């Protein structure tokens, strides 16, 4: 009996550390699962050729668009045409997006590339994915006639939204995605209603309907999106745990004007932008605006206007905006 106590205490310790180890392994496994899942979906979207119809819901609105994606020897081309309302189209080629608005006789050219596409997550971001979201495979379903796997990123706090994804079982391509608010109501969603994957697609199918811009159209050239990366003199003193700064610098918006400070934070799944502009010509109205899951909040700070924009609840963007200070 005298030596019964020490072994049992040791056993408890051993059990405890084994449990801790298992929990650690389990959480690492979840992080790996989440990353693997995201990586597969991202690669499929880049590498596959597909053509399909997308139903896009934002708030009470529903829009349908036709999308054609071509990967031609590593070069991506994409064409998006809306099927409702005035005919408009978007053409994405390497590093440039052209938006055609024939109803307004307007072309908008965005010389920008997307820099932060998956799977370029830092190890910290990968960890924060599983620390701040519960990643679960829900099961199987069908979307657009194809078998899909349903996964969810359920936030572990109320500072971010939930994400539900339906990915093609065969290729991993995302066929449906939904952003969920804190009441688990869908606030923004897209879904393919029909899709043909690995379809024969040639360059003519991703070419604009207006190879030459008609003379009487206006051309809005976006200024180069290149950011001068440097300390902006502004500091964000609060972001939700798990959000990391991924960029800080100055940029000029369309029309030149003054430099705007732009800081970007991300938790691996969504990003939040912080803009600081001189207050004489702010781009955003003071207060809240939102569009589907995108929340925007602007607040005055002395002679500047701070605007925070991101796919997080409105309380989160407001709290971030109110935490911005001069360094």
């Amino acid at each position, binding site marked *: 009996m005298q030596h019964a106590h020490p072994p049992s205490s040791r056993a408890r310790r051993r059990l405890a550390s084994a449990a801790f180890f298992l929990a650690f392994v389990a959480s690492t496994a979840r992080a790996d699962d989440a990353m693997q899942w995201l990586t597969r979906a991202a690669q499929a979207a880049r590498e596959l050729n597909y053509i399909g119809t997308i139903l896009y819901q934002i708030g009470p609105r529903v829009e349908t*668009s036709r*999308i054609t994606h071509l990967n031609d020897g590593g070069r991506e081309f994409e064409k998006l045409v809306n099927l409702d309302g005035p005919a408009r189209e978007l053409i994405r080629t390497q590093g440039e997006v052209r938006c055609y608005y024939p109803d307004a006789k307007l072309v908008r050219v965005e010389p920008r590339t997307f820099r932060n596409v*998956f799977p370029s997550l830092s190890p910290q971001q990968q960890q924060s994915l599983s620390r701040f979201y519960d990643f679960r495979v829900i099961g199987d379903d069908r979307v657009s006639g194809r078998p899909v796997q349903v996964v969810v990123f359920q936030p572990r706090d109320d500072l971010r939204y939930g994400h539900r994804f339906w990915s093609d079982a065969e290729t991993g391509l995302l066929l449906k995605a939904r952003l969920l608010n804190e009441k688990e109501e869908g606030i923004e969603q897209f879904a393919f209603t029909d899709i043909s994957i690995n379809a024969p697609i040639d360059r003519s199918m991703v070419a604009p309907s207006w190879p030459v811009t008609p003379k009487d159209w206006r051309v809005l050239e976006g200024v180069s999106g290149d950011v001068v990366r440097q300390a902006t003199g502004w500091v964000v003193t609060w972001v939700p745990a798990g959000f990391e700064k991924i960029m800080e610098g100055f940029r000029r918006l369309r029309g030149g004007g003054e430099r705007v400070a732009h800081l970007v934070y991300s938790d691996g799944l969504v990003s939040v932008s912080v803009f600081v502009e001189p207050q004489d010509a702010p781009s955003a109205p003071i207060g809240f605006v939102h569009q589907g899951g995108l929340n*925007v909040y602007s607040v005055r700070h002395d002679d500047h206007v701070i605007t925070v924009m991101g796919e997080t609840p409105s309380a989160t963007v407001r709290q971030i905006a109110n935490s911005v200070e001069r360094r």
Partner: protein
Amino acid sequence: MSESISRLMDGDVDVAELDAVCASLKSGEAMATWTCYHAIGDALRGEIAVTRDVRGAVASRLAGDPTVLAPRRSVPSTPASWAWAVAATLAAVGVVGWTAYSLVDSTPAGLARMRDAGTMRAAELRPATVPTDLLFAHQEYAPSIMLQGVGPYLRDVAVTREVQP
């Protein structure tokens, strides 16, 4: 004033006039007129059952004010223009509602310029919008597994629908 209210609902009020018309809505009588006109609109479009009370109100309004329906004949009235009027009015009284983009320069500075130039009608005074320039800048850094490049622009295509009033 009733004529101004009627034109406001059709989105035909000049910006210069807008403040005065909106201010006048604060008075009980003008608000009654406003409510009454909307009841007429709803009834004309068959959206509500016309109750005895509304009919009574309409009748007394018509008796005292023969101009009520005249502007409605002179301006082709579609449900859309009624909707515009409401949207414009909501914006005018500072309620931020639906946040569609606009190809008109919808920044506060842009709105101020147009207001100064007197080129904007009430119908173009729209609810505050998510600023496109900032949105595009933001989305450049948004992690995206949804359709990579074009996905973010879906928002733009979808919400710029109401650009041309």
